[in-house]
């Protein structure tokens, strides 16, 4: 009778300890990668890691990682631990803000310039600047294939896909765009764009990557230092002469954002 009593006492003690420790249990999080042939799972069990600073020093640590450090294998270099993550584990965000992707210039009327705008926004990774390119897939055209050429800007102020010029005259025809850096209140500050578009009277052609031009995409906004939510307003403008059929014209504009290396 003595042995079962001792067994149940030990079991009760064990269950009590288990019950007490359960609320303090933390669940491990692991990553899973799947392919038709492989399933790879791994977890990171470090207790704490991060970057601590005070006025005189900066400390980065990884505590509890199974195998922190830099390792090499045949043909490979593996860096394991927080110190090897934070320098490269950075986010890059690109946004077209104002709730639309379409360019709506309405039905173009000869001699009446039409404009529409988009707002783009960029957050670059820590330590890196960014560059944003633009391009058009083909010339601005209607469903019958008639095209509106890219603007050359006002007489005496020539613009191309890589140089800006003023476009204020009502008798200057074509399709072009302007990009101006703006702040969170939509006030123009020219940040990232002032070297390319000095003000809102300056326009450029979109680089036509299609026939017949086959041009290269061009930078429309860039900064060499890291930024957070830097924005630019893109203004699209089209004006057609009297002999140009009115109607709906279209093209596809692509904005490409990449960080500095």
């Amino acid at each position, binding site marked *: 009778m003595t042995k079962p009593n001792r067994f149940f006492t030990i079991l009760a003690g064990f269950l009590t300890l288990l019950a007490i420790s359960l609320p303090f249990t933390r669940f491990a999080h692991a990553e899973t990668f799947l392919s038709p042939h492989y399933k790879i799972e791994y977890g990171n069990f470090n207790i704490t890691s991060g970057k601590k600073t005070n006025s005189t020093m900066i400390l980065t640590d990884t505590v509890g990682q199974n195998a922190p450090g830099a390792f090499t294998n045949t043909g490979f*270099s593996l860096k394991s631990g927080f110190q090897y993550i934070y320098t490269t*584990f*950075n986010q*890059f965000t*690109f946004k077209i803000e104002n709730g639309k992707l*379409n360019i709506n210039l309405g039905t173009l009327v000869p001699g009446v310039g039409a404009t529409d705008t988009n707002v783009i926004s960029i957050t670059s990774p820590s330590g*890196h600047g960014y560059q944003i390119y633009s391009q058009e897939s083909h010339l601005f055209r209607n469903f019958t294939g008639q095209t509106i050429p890219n603007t050359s800007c006002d007489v005496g102020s020539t613009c191309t896909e890589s140089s800006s010029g003023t476009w204020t005259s009502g008798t200057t025809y074509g399709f072009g765009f302007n990009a101006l850096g703006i702040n969170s209140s939509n006030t123009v500050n020219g940040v990232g764009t002032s070297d390319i578009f000095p003000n809102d009277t300056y326009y450029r052609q979109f680089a036509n990557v299609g026939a017949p031009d086959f041009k290269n995409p061009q930078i429309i906004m860039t900064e060499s230092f890291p930024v957070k939510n830097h924005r630019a307003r893109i203004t699209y403008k089209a004006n057609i002469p009297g002999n140009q059929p009115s109607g709906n014209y279209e093209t596809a504009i*692509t*904005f490409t*954002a990449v960080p500095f290396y």
Partner: protein
Amino acid sequence: MAFFDVTLTPAQVEIVAKPGTLITQVFTVTNNSDNTIYLTPSVSVWQPNGPSGLITYIDVPKNPYFDFSLLNSDIYLNKPFVLEAHSTQQVVLKAKSNPETPLGDAYHTLFLTQTLGETNDVSSSPSTVARIGSHFLVSISNSESPTVQSKVIAFHASPVVKDIFLTPIRFDGQITNLTDYFFKINGNLTITKNNLVIAKIPLSPDNILANHSRSVTCLKNDTPIPCVLNPPLWPGKYTATLSLDPSMNTQNASFDFFVFPFSFVLLASLVALLGLFVWRQSRTLSKTK
């Protein structure tokens, strides 16, 4: 409300691998918008364009020694996939280098291009589309830490007239990578006067790509900034030195510059002239009386 709002992580990957190695890298793409979007992954090769960190994809030939694909079972290169609003997707890039790959660097970008539907064609769309990229820097080497060599060029200070009060003195220079492997800048800009250190500013750990130059920038609170020395400064002879880590196999570069009390002398002259003028006026007045 945004119709395209995408975050790509990491923004850059840097790997050293031996020829013939299979490399896999996970990129995480997040759709922060309220809309379902379609994205098409693709890989493009690039090269540096100038010393500021700009890159170009123009006229850069495809690297024949690398073969890219995705390890995902349901996502393929050059084919669109759907990403629901406020959701995240891992894109697992596989890069297979040929065993015959020449030693040296290869630079690529993983692009995610927005498409307006399940088709890959964006050219028939009367609209804008966005594209976001993350860089993939690979050094093909038989050593984990390839030996690098570099030199400092065009190290100088501006403006030409350096005054004790007027404007900050800006330091510019470039570091040229003389090898086939990229490396990070690791060093300091030190300003001394009479062998006393006035300022020691860490350089930003920017990458210098193979056989290219990179402008140096300084680091303040982990953020790259232009290298400047702010006034006020004592007049005299100063020495600026760009010292790099010995692993970069670079000779330190330094030059002397002088700070003069131009603004003080100008102000003192003006005050003296004014005093002289007042004194003469008072003498003239007293003679008239």
